[in-house]
């Protein structure tokens, strides 16, 4: 069942983008940032769930049972025990999905028409297409676009490496 999620990712984006383009154009909601957010969400959520699911499965069920007996509700167990323990997994999944959305080009290229709404990756291409601008400026723009990802990566790196569950169980 969970593998079918990954199977869907084997479809190239271009196969999806054409019917979506037609659909959104007919409904008349195509040129919009909110729409793009929705598309990115739909694109990254399954893989995020897949990654988190396999992490949650590694958490010992006894810990959740202990929480239940200690007086938590089901939601309380998730909030007070599962989420704090999942910080590294949540961080890496967040970084991963952010990277996908940040670097995404095809959907932004197809769906957005108004330059004011362009995403950065789409904007850089717009710059590159302009004959009046020097190539150096386009290069500088590309570098600037990668900086946020770089900073985020450095910031998250420490959390990604260490696991938190050490010491909960025996041995």
């Amino acid at each position, binding site marked *: 069942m969970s593998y079918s999620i990954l199977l869907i990712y084997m479809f190239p984006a271009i196969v999806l983008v054409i019917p979506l383009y037609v659909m959104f154009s007919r409904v008349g909601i195509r040129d919009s940032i909110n729409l793009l957010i929705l598309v990115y969400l739909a694109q990254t959520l399954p893989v995020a769930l897949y990654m988190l699911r396999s992490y949650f499965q590694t958490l*010992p069920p*006894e810990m959740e*049972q*202990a929480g239940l*007996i200690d*007086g938590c509700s089901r939601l309380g167990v998730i909030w007070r025990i599962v989420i704090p323990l999942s910080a590294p997994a949540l961080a890496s999944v967040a970084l991963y999905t952010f990277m996908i959305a940040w670097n995404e080009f095809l959907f932004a290229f197809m769906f957005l028409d108004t330059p004011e709404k362009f995403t950065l990756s789409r904007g850089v291409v717009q710059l590159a297409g302009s004959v009046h601008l020097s190539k150096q400026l386009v290069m500088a723009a590309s570098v600037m676009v990668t900086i946020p990802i770089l900073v985020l990566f450095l910031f998250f790196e420490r959390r990604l490496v260490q696991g938190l569950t*050490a*010491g*909960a169980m*025996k041995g």
Partner: protein
Amino acid sequence: MASLTLKAITKRFGKVMALSCVDLHVEDGEFCVLLGPSGCGKSTLLNIIAGLILQDEGTVLLDGKSVDRLFPRDRDVAMVFQSYALYPHMTVAQNLEFGLRMRGVPKPTIQELVLESAHLLGIEDLLDRKPRELSGGQRQRVAMGRVMVRRPRLFLLDEPLSNLDARLRASVRLELKQLHRKIQSTILYVTHDQVEAMTLGDKVVVMRNGKVHQIDQPETIYARPADTFVAGFIGSPEMNLYQGRLFQKDGRSHFQGAGFSLDLGGLKPNVGQGEVEVGIRPEDIEICHSATALRGKVEMISNIGSEKYLHVGLGNVSLTVRAPKEANFQPGQIILLTIDPDRLHIFHEGRRI
């Protein structure tokens, strides 16, 4: 504290019968041990009492009141897991506080209770540490502390000592016994280790394949096992058990096994005749020089230091006999054995007669 009563608890996992019709009563303040080989359903039973899984049939009563419809947190029981299941992102103090905080106990009271439990268990110095900085024994103590602070009505302990090394296990076992005497709590303790069961329990429940085989005091379990399973499971080395026939001759009962026979004297005239199993514990066999004794050949000797166990060939069967540590036997030697008929355990169709 509370008394615990189980009435006809039944649980199936798919087609597998995990528990069938388990009845049990644990008195207020009693230390009850569930003993059985792995997979006999004892942990399942504990989870049902805690409310973590639901039984298919039957009722769990605390102090005579059914708790079947209550969530785990409302049952007011506490559980120590085999793996301890400490919260790794919290310090020891926070681990101990957690249950009290969840129940809205006022802060000063929490502090007091945590310190008191920590003192009782000797873990005051560890309160600021995280579980990963503790040794196995220390983690075990914290796990005990976490359930003790709450003063629950019932303690459930699921093989709490099985992750400790042998020496530590023995000392923690003694501490646990003392602790129980101090706090006088009702405890249900699950183990597959008969030494733990015999030393800790006021009452021992022997289980196999989801069925209760015997509920008794440890002494009775050892001295009068209810069936062949209990007889073989309790005691180390195992009781010697032999298939054979019982018959009457000249007003006396005799047992004829494969390769040896026993005169049972005037014992058990009500048994009559038929297929039986007789059991004799290794320490109940006497090595002697009587001419009427059984003749056996020593095949192997296990020396465990405090005593020796001789594996003796007797006809087609082999027999384990306890010998004092000073005894000097050699493999191949012929020895004479006598068995007191009063010490025999006789089973018909698996049940004691």
